[in-house]
Structures are given as C-alpha cells and as structure tokens.
C-alpha cells in the first residue's frame, strides 16, 4: 500500500487497527480465563498488559508515516468547520488579509517589473554597456557616450566582446497618409544579434548594409508594420520615406521590441548616416554601445582588454583621446528616479499589510481565549502540545492562504489601473505582469502572515496550565491576554499614525507647492515640437524657414505671439553649459554651469517672464553681430554679486560653445539684460536643483552649420487669447504639409504634471492611511468588545455594588483611551522617522510641522474613541442579575 492509498483508505485502516487490537484482547482474555481467572478479572489484566488502547492506536498511526498529512487534512477540515460555524469572523479576517496581500502584491508586481526583472533579452547577464571615461572629471562627471570612430576601432580590435552601437534619431515619415513624426533608432548591423533578437519577418542588417555607400535599408517596428502596411508580409521589399530618404524595408522587429526601454518605429543602419560630426572623435553626437561577452570571457578580462585598446588609441589620436579610456559595466535597465518612489510605496503597503495582520491576529487571539476550555479539554484527552500548536497554525495559515489567493485575484485586477494612474510614463511598463515571481511572493507573504497571526494564539493556548483552565471555566483567565491585546491595538494605532502623518505631510506640501510662482504666466500657452520638412533641412539656410513658420503661426486668429525655444520650462530635457566669469580660467573643470536656452526675440513675451534690467533680444542680434546673452537673477547674483551685470561679459568655453567651431579658449558674450528666474526643474524640484542659474542666447546667433541639429531640438511656444487647445487644429493645417507637429502640450499641463508625482503619492498615501484608520478602528472595536465581554461578571458586581452606567462607560473608555494614547505616542516617533524618509525621497517635501500632527492626531483619536463607544455603552447596560448568573 503506498502513501496515498493509506491516505484514501483511512477509514478501512482505522477499522482494521481496531479489529486487530480487539482480537488481541479477546485472545488474551480467553487464555487468562483458561488459566482460571474470572471473566472480569481476565479482561482487566489483558487491558492492563496492552496499555491504553487509544495510546496504542495513536502510536500505530504515528508508525504509518503519513501521519502529518492526515493531521493536516484533519486540521483543515476542522478549520473549515470553525470558519463556517463563525462566518462573520471568517469573512472579516479573509477580507482583511486579502486587502493586505492584494495591495502588497500590486506594488510588488510593479517593483518586480520595473526594478527587479532582468532585461528582456537573451542571457541579459552577459550584456554590458560601454562608455568612454576620462581621467579627469568635470562638472558633468567623467563618463561619456562613445564617439563613432572610437566605437569602430574598439569593435575591430576586441576579442572578448561583440559590440553594437545605437543612437536615437527621430524624424518624419511621409506617405499618402501625410507626414508623421516617429521615433527612430540608428543602429550598427550587430545590434539585433547582440541582443539575441530574432526578427519575425524578413532579415536584420548585414555588415555590408552598414556603410555610407550602401543601398538605404530599414527595419520597421511591428507597430508601424501594422499601422502602415496592415500587417501585410508584402511590406518586405516595399519602401518607406523617412526624413526625405527612401528606404527599402528588409525586416520587421518583434512586437514590443525596445532598445533598453527606448521605443522606435524605424531602425536604420548607423553607418549610413552622412553627418560629418558622426565621424569626429570630439564634439560628436554620442552613441550608445552595448556588447555581449564572448562565451567564457569574464567582465574583468573584457575590461582589461578595453583599457589596452584605450591606451593604444590615446597614442594614435592624442588630440582627442589623451586621458580617455573605455569601460564596461553590466547593462542595467534605465529607470531614472522611479526606484525611490516604488520602494517608498512598497514600504507603505507593507505597513498596511502589517496592520491587517495585527488585526487578524487580535481576532484570532480573542477566539483562542474563548476556546481555552476546549483546548484544555483536548489536552486532557491526550492531545500533545505540538499537535495543538500545529492545529492553530494550520487554521491561520489556511486563512492567510485563502486571503492570499483572493489577494492575488485583487492584484491581477488592480495592476492595470495602477499603471494607468501612474503620472507620466512608467519605465518598462510593458514588463509589468503578474508572473510566477509575484505569485511566489504573494504565497510567501501569505504564509508568513499566516504564521505571524497564528503565533500568538498557538503558543499561548496550550501553554496554559491545564487544571486551572478547566476549573476557571473561562471566567477569570481573561486578564492574562489583556496585555497582548493592548499591544496589538497600540501597534495598530501607531502604524495608522505613521501613514496618516505621511499623508498629511504630502497634502501640506502639495498645497504649498501649488501656490508657488513658476516665474512665468502659464495660462494660454501652447508648446509644440515641429519636425522641419526634410527638404528644407537638406538645403540651408534654415533660419528663414523657421522665420516663415513663426510668421504664419502669428497670423492665425487667437494667436498673440510666437517664439522658438529649445528648453521648455518644466518639460523633460535640458541643455547645460559651463560659463567663465573671466576670459581665462585656471582650472576649466571648475567652471560654473548654467541652463542654456536658445530662443527667438518674442520668447519673453510668450512666457511673460518679467524683464528686470536691460533689454531682451531683437532682430539685430544675429550672426555677425556681437554675441549677446540675457541672464536670470540667479546667474546675475552668482557671477556679479551686487554689481550691475548689464554690459559686462562672460565667456562660453569653446569646447561646447554653440556660437563657433573653434577648439580653444572661450567665446566672449555680452550680458544685455536680466530676467526673472523660471522654475525649469518644476515647482517642487527647482529649489534643490543642482543647476539653477539660467541664461538665454539668440537662436539666430547659433553657428550656421549647427542649425540643422538645433532644429531638431526647437519647440514652438504660442501665446493665445483663446483656449490654447483650440488652435491645435488651425496650427497643424497652417504648418503641416511635409513637416509634422508632435509633442503638443499646454504650459498649464506641464505645470500640473510637475506636481503629478506628489499628487499621485498623496492619493495613494491617502488611501493607505484611510485603510489603516479603518482597520485600526475595527481592531480597537474588536478588542474592546472582547475584553469587555470577558469582564461582564465583574461589571455586574460593580453595578450591583452601586456603580452608575456612566462610571462603567468611563471605565471601558479609559481602557480604550490608554491604548490609543500609547499607540499615538509610539506612532509619532515612527512618523517622525517616516517623515525624514519622505523628505529624502520626495522632491519639495516639507518637514512634518506641528500643524501636521495637530490635524491628524485629533482625527485619529476621534475615530478610535468612536470605535470604543459601542462596547462601552454595551458594558454600561449590563444587567447585574444576568451577569452574575453567567456560567
């Protein structure tokens, strides 16, 4: 008989055991009778010799080896019976646990998808990211994107790595459906194979495609294939026109393919890019390099080899490569600053889960205490202590697992809305799924919480000394669990305080930030990027084309003024330049940095930024005339202190100057005006920002050959007299044709979005705090109701001795209040610590002030007292006669 047969034929086995022992007893009795004993004496002796039949049976059952499983099944049946007998308790406990595990599982799913999962490529642990590294670091650090020629050399010489390069390159795709701006990626021919990506249709690039003279070919995204070609396989071999160049489509990328979380619709060979800057070793557009370690090669070996190549290139090209090496690091997903927020939220939901556990634990404990007599009885009947502990734990684990299952279900339906609610786009959002990791995590936390909530009753119940429990009859022993119960309530209240204060801090911060002046008037301003017509870009001069576009936009009805700007306040992306307060600088790497923004003369008008001194730009500030800048008051103070900056000069180091191609010294520029500071980094983040100084320079003074690159960066800003969204249509019509408007936003949106993270956190913390408060109130109610019911006889005596209902009520309330105040005391300490964490992690967070506590604590006390009133009133109405007759 194998183990499952034994398990399923349990009943038959039990019968056989009974029969075998009976046979033994009868045989023995008969033999004793034959030896002359009387019938009853013989039976007694036989029994005595064998020992207690129940004990023998237990030992026989133990010998079977499937005992634990049988017990488990029995315990589970018993637990289910207890739940159905007490459905109210079971439902409350189940829902509480489901909620706790559910929210925790949702947060973990997101953390898992965004932060923990490896990149979705073949053997991601063999992938590395390469950077150039300079010996000296300046204000921007010492890690740099690769120069294309350096990449070509490294790729040729490396024996330990297969390398691939890529670069973002948006542009216009034209066709019968009109012009459309799409994201594009230029890549070296090896990128698909380095990442281990197979194309579902067509082929990837070959080495011979990766040259300037090769026939233009492109791989399109799965999405574009569906959109433009209706998913027709005949797309292979047809052509697309991208940025004025016709490409033959040779392949389709797999659905959802992203290069390190960068989306693109079209992929072209990097080697076909004609731009001369790409072939330079300095002042080049950087490219990203990903490589795969050859089998058996360690990262250290690859690093050593790269260092060697770096030294050789430094000798060969001292002007550009002196002091420049190459480094490799494991390829990691780029998730920006989302990590801190996610961990913060995971921490917050863990608190909710903890409260849920404490709540269920106190419910279970209350039940265990009322079941004390039952347990004592079972000990008397031969149940071992371990057996009872196991039974208690089985019960709570079953409860937690059921709750966890429900929680996973909740999580599955909650992830979608959560990701959708996330302000802005969540990195790696495609990779957020309920997978085996999440399921495992949910089961693990369910089991742990099951054991946690079962621990108190399990360890407590059988340890009571037997005789006292039986004799006491459940009347006087209640007091012993009181301390544990109080501890539960205190910790629940403390956890609720932490969450409430955190929510209040976020709320206060948000209110304060909303009233902050961004430094410009953001109503009625529309921002749009424009991808210039490829024919215009290919045929300079470009400036008149922009002028023409602005002129046409200005004459639309409802438009007041129009300007070009490269760095839009509060929007992603910025351009930072170093400046020198003198024509030479001893250590150029220490030069201060400012945000540099190229604009057209009407920019101040469009944004309504106050002019504090001097003048803003006009049409005379163009190439050939003196180079001019307008600075903000922060830079004025930083560079000139209290002196008048108008007419003074600053120097822009030519290594990065937009005005000229020279490689040494610095371009002098004259300060002609001072304007107010604009909160570029957002309402919340600007105060703490690293670079706050700002200056503006005329778009018309950018060195002519660079205008094409600048044109990709410029946005059009439109001040309107009508709601800005209403001019999107006319603007599109006016400027459309073979150029495309994209990334259309209003300044109002940008201002609001800059607080989206804080608002989102406030919403979530508000929900968590509400849940915590509700759970804590349920906990307080449950515990007080239970403790009071245990004291009914005592209360009866008090009333019989003349206590008034108000006295009794006060007695119960005082008990509740004691726990609440102790909880608040503990909670305030926790909240202070949590506040420090929040300040560290959330931009613009103000410290928790007195008012934060003054708002939250009374709410908590009121709610908690409300929860205590019901049991207190019930106690005050105890009828002394009934109470004394109890038991």
């Amino acid at each position, binding site marked *: 008989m194998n183990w499952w047969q034994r398990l399923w034929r349990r009943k038959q086995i039990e019968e056989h055991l009974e029969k*075998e022992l009976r046979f033994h007893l009868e045989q023995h009795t008969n033999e004793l009778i034959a030896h002359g004993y009387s019938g009853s004496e013989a039976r007694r002796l036989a029994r005595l010799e064998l*020992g207690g039949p129940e004990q023998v049976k237990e030992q026989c059952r133990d*010998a079977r080896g499937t005992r634990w499983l049988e017990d488990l099944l029995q315990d589970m049946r018993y637990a289910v019976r207890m739940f159905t007998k007490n459905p109210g308790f079971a439902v409350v406990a189940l829902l509480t646990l489901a909620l706790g595990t559910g929210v925790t599982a949702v947060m973990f799913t997101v953390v898992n998808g965004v932060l923990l999962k490896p990149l979705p490529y073949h053997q991601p642990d063999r992938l590395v990211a390469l950077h150039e590294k300079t010996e000296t670091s300046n204000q921007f650090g010492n890690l740099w994107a690769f120069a294309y020629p350096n990449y070509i050399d490294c790729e040729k010489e490396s024996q330990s790595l297969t390398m691939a390069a890529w670069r973002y390159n948006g542009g216009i795709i034209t066709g019968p459906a009109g012009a459309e701006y799409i994201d594009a990626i230029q890549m070296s021919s090896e990128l698909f194979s380095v990442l281990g990506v197979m194309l579902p249709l067509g082929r990837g690039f070959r080495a011979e495609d990766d040259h300037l003279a090769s026939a233009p070919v492109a791989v399109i995204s799965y999405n574009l294939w569906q959109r433009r070609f209706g998913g027709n396989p005949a797309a292979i071999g047809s052509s697309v026109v991208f940025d004025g160049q016709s490409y033959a489509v040779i392949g389709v990328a797999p659905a959802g393919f992203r290069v390190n979380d960068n989306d693109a619709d079209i992929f072209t060979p990097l080697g076909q890019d004609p731009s001369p800057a790409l072939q330079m070793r300095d002042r080049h557009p950087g490219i990203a390099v990903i490589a795969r370690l050859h089998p058996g090669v360690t990262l250290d070996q690859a690093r050593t080899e790269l260092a060697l190549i770096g030294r050789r290139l430094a000798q060969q090209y001292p002007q550009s490569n002196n002091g420049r090496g190459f480094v490799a690091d494991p390829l990691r997903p780029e998730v920006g600053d989302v990590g801190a927020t996610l961990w913060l939220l995971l921490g917050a939901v863990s608190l909710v889960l903890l409260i849920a556990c404490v709540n269920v634990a106190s419910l279970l404990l209350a039940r265990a205490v009322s079941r004390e007599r039952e347990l004592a009885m079972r000990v008397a009947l031969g149940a071992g202590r371990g057996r009872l502990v196991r039974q208690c734990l089985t019960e709570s684990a079953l409860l937690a697992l059921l709750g966890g299952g429900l929680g996973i279900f909740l999580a599955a339906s909650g992830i979608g809305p959560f990701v959708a609610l996330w302000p802005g786009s969540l990195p790696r959002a495609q990779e957020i799924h309920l997978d085996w990791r999440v399921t495992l995590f949910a089961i693990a936390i369910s089991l742990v919480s099951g054991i946690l909530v079962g621990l108190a009753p399990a360890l407590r119940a059988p340890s009571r000394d037997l005789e006292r429990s039986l004799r006491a009859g459940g009347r006087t022993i209640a007091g012993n669990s009181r301390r544990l119960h109080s501890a539960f309530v205190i910790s629940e209240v403390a956890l609720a305080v932490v969450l409430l204060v955190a929510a209040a801090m976020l709320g206060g911060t948000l209110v304060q930030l909303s009233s902050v002046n961004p430094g410009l008037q953001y109503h009625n301003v529309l921002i749009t990027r424009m991808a210039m017509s490829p024919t215009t870009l290919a045929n300079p001069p470009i400036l008149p084309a922009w002028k023409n576009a602005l002129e046409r936009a200005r004459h639309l009805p409802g438009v007041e003024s129009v300007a070009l700007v490269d760095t839009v306040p509060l929007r992603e992306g910025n351009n930072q330049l170093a400046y020198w307060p003198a024509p030479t600088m001893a250590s150029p790497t220490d030069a201060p940095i400012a945000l540099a923004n190229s604009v057209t003369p009407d920019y101040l008008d469009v944004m309504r930024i106050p002019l504090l001194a001097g003048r803003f730009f006009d049409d005379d500030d163009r190439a050939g005339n003196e180079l001019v800048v307008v600075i903000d008051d922060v830079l004025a103070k930083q560079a000139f202190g209290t002196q008048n900056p108008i007419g003074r000069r600053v120097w822009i180091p030519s290594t990065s100057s937009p005005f000229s191609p020279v490689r040494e010294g610095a371009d002098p520029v004259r300060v002609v005006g001072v304007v107010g500071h604009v909160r570029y980094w957002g309402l919340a983040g600007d105060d703490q920002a690293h670079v706050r100084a700002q200056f503006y320079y005329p778009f018309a003074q950018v060195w002519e050959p660079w205008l094409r690159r600048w044109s990709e960066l410029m946005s059009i800003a439109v001040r309107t007299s009508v709601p800005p969204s209403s001019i999107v249509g006319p603007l599109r019509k006016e400027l459309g044709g073979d150029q495309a408007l994209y990334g259309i936003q209003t300044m109002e949106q940008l201002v609001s979005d800059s607080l989206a993270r804080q608002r989102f956190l406030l919403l979530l913390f508000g929900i968590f705090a509400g849940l915590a408060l509700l759970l804590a109130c349920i906990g307080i109610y449950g515990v007080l109701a239970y403790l009071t019911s245990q004291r009914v006889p005592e209360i009866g005596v008090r009333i019989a001795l003349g206590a008034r209902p108000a006295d009794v009520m006060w007695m119960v309330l005082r008990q509740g209040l004691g726990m609440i105040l102790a909880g608040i005391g503990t909670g305030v300490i926790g909240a202070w610590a949590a506040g420090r964490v929040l300040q560290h992690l959330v931009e613009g967070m103000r410290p928790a002030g007195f008012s934060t506590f003054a708002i939250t604590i009374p709410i908590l006390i009121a709610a908690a007292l409300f929860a205590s009133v019901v049991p207190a009133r019930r106690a005050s109405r105890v009828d002394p006669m009934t109470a004394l007759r109890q038991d």
Partner: protein
Amino acid sequence: MSEKSDLPQGTLDLLILKVVALGSVHGYAIAQRLQQVSRDVVQVPQGSLYPALHRLENRGLLAADWKETETGREAKFYRLTRKGRAQLDAEAASWKRLTEAVGLILRMAPEGAE
C-alpha cells in the same frame, strides 16, 4: 516483573522479524512466542508491539493478510517479505558481531586487571 530486564533499544524489531520468519503469525501469537522463547526473562511491552509491527509493515519488511485462525476467527497475519528477510539476515549478523565483541571484552577484563 522487576527481575526481568528491558529490551535493548532496537532489538524488538529484530526479534519480531525472527519470529515472523518462522511462519505467518498474528500479533497476539507473536507476543506469546516472544514471551515463551525469551523464557520470561525479557520484558516485551505489548503496548509497543503493535506500533513496531505497523512500522515494519510500513517499511515493507513485513506484509500482512487477514486470514482465519484455527478457531475460525479473523485475524491479521504477518509474514516476512524478501526485503524483510534480507534485513533480518543483516541485523542478525550484526547482532552476532556485536555480542561476540562485547563478550570478548568482558572476558578480557580479568587479564587487564593483572
């Protein structure tokens, strides 16, 4: 009862296997046989006999069938399996080695005292 010595740890299994090896028997008969064979010197607690039988059955050393006794009653008869026989041989041999070794040491004791 006090004159009888307790059964050394682990030997009950060996004795049961030996008794069952002589032919298929039921539990009570095993108890009696053990009592007789050991000439009332060794105390076999009946209470531990049945758990031991079940344990041996569970390990596949014994097999059991329900059969009628000569008095026409149904009883559970144990017999040795092939695995059980191998186990018996192994344990008996090791027991023999152990007792010989112990005896040897005990005999040596007076010489060592000289």
